């Protein structure tokens, strides 16, 4: 098991390298550069711009730039300093990651807490008004683009409730209530796109298992319907649930990019959008790699969760 985990962690390295090349090249392919951003508000000559580019290392050959970035990925700076502000990338991305990770954690927790009981209720009352309502709402919620839902929500909060989310982000350590007030709306929006997947897979899997012979066998020995659900059907549905929860995590992260921008949260998503517009190469590159590693780690956790839920799954050496 330990060997398996170590091997999987080792495999993250080449994946991250591949991603780093793609991100690096895509960024260079974009027109414009950070020198234009920095000098945007000052009258300047072409010579001044070129001098700034030299100073920032933008005129070095591509492979030199790439190697310099990769080499500094290993340091605390995590990819050098921001071309725009001169701050170490590690500080910028680290702060942003904590915001995005919290947002994702709230979304996943909220979704699981709602999707599992609701999916179970729908599965047990299959075909009833409750089931159809739950299914309909889930499909509708899944079909609304997050951008549209975000803007609509902000408009509703402003026009109807004369309330807007606080502008300044507070971490849970600073002011928990303020933090909750800021995070609840973005988390709800993300859950609106994430939760339906979990709900649908829970419902479908439970319906399947509740019709299986071993569910009938459990009924035959006198187990009540809730007993069959909790003891036999839910453990089985967990496997599918964990799979979908993991697969959709990538989509959740890209949704975070949108809601962070709309709600002004200082997370990785907004950070990456801002840095990309400014062509702040090191920040974009490092932030992208952090996201890639985050998603890969979640996938690893999902695979480890299989072994925890399903006795048929073993990693590493078999004992039986």
């Amino acid at each position, binding site marked *: 098991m330990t060997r398996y985990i170590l091997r999987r962690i080792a495999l993250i390295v080449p994946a991250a390298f591949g991603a780093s090349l793609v991100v690096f090249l895509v960024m260079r392919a974009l027109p414009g550069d950070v020198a234009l951003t920095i000098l945007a508000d000052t009258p300047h000559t072409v010579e001044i711009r070129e001098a700034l580019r030299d100073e920032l290392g933008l005129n070095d050959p591509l492979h030199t730039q790439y190697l310099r970035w990769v080499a500094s990925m290993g340091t605390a700076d995590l990819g050098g300093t921001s071309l725009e502000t001169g701050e170490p990338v590690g500080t910028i991305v680290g702060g942003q990651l904590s915001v995005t990770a919290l947002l994702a954690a709230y979304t996943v927790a909220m979704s699981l807490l709602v999707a599992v009981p609701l999916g179970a209720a729908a599965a047990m009352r299959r075909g009833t008004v409750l089931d159809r309502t739950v299914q309909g709402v889930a499909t509708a919620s899944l079909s609304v683009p997050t951008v549209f839902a975000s803007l609509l929500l902000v408009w509703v909060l402003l026009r109807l409730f004369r309330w807007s989310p606080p502008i300044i982000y507070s971490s849970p350590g600073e002011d928990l209530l303020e933090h909750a007030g800021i995070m609840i709306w973005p988390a709800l929006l993300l859950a609106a796109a994430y939760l339906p997947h979990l709900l649908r897979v829970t419902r479908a899997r439970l319906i399947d298992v509740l019709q299986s012979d071993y569910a009938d066998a459990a009924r035959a020995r006198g187990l009540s319907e809730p007993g069959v659900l909790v003891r*036999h059907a839910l453990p*089985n549905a967990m496997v599918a649930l964990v799979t979908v929860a993991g697969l959709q995590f990538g989509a959740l992260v890209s949704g975070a990019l949108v809601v962070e921008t709309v709600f002004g949260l200082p997370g990785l998503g907004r950070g990456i959008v801002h840095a990309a517009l400014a062509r702040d190469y090191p920040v974009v590159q490092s932030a992208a790699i952090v996201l890639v590693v985050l998603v890969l780690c979640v996938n690893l956790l999902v695979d480890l969760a299989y072994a925890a839920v399903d006795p048929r799954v073993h990693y590493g050496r078999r004992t039986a």
Partner: protein
Amino acid sequence: MSDAQGRAANGMLVEARELRVHFYPRSGLFRRSVVKAVDGISLDIASNEIVAVVGESGSGKTTLGRALVRLVPITEGTVSFAGINVAGLEGDDLKAYRRRAQVVFQDPYASNSPFMTIGDQLLEPLAVHGIGDPSSRREAVLRALELVRLTPASDVVDTYPHTMSGGQRQRVCIARALMLEPEFIVADEPVSMIDASSRAEILSLLRELQERRGMTILYITHDIASARHFSDRTLVMYLGTAVEAGPSPAVISEPLHPYTQGLIAAVPEPDPANRHSLRSVIPGEPPNATAAPSGCPFHTRCPRAIPGTCESVRPALKEVRPGHAVACHLYE
């Protein structure tokens, strides 16, 4: 009327009367299709008796078995179990009935929860019914595993079903059905999905348990040859109706109904000299279950159908020899 052991006065444990189980697979505003999976079956099973139910796929034999243990709702008719009407049981009464009537399913791969150890699966019936305390339950589990010869029992309790073969899993299912010490077991094709080499073993295990514990078994099978060796009486089903019933040796060596005759003719004979001889088979497929034929349900495939009679009048099950009944116009 029942005595101290809960047996009806006439010695019958299970008495089904005009049992019907209908399914409505598609219900719309204008169309309503009906599958009459069990369509008016009457069946008596005496205590300590093994009754076989034989028929093709789709004949309703599995549904009949499931209805008797109340796993599918009974549409019409009565099932009396030791004097209790099973069809209307609910709540605690149904739970009490489950203690007395158990079931072994066809597919041993699908009827064990893959997420529970063998020990936990066997413990569950005892826990659900609140029988014994944790240590006595564990002992009961070990005893049951030894009874079905899954040894060493102390190792088997902690394994998961996926480490076992089909035959072993089926023995787990039998052990699980026995945990509550039921009087009646419905064995739904218990050997059809396991290796030929394990079949005889499983059947002789069931027979031994039946003899030792005085159980009553409804043995559902499509293998009419095994019915002869295993059961006391045989009921032949076709499209939800009983076409022939009687003592197993009589039904199998002197079948009366053309359908039963066809089923028996289709059994391969273990004689190499016959390998090239053509065996007569029943022509065609069973009709669509949502559109059962008029009259005798078998007339569309019957080689001896009487024109003018069989397609319009449904024959009733009549005793034509002692204990041997047939539903066929040829015997009227």
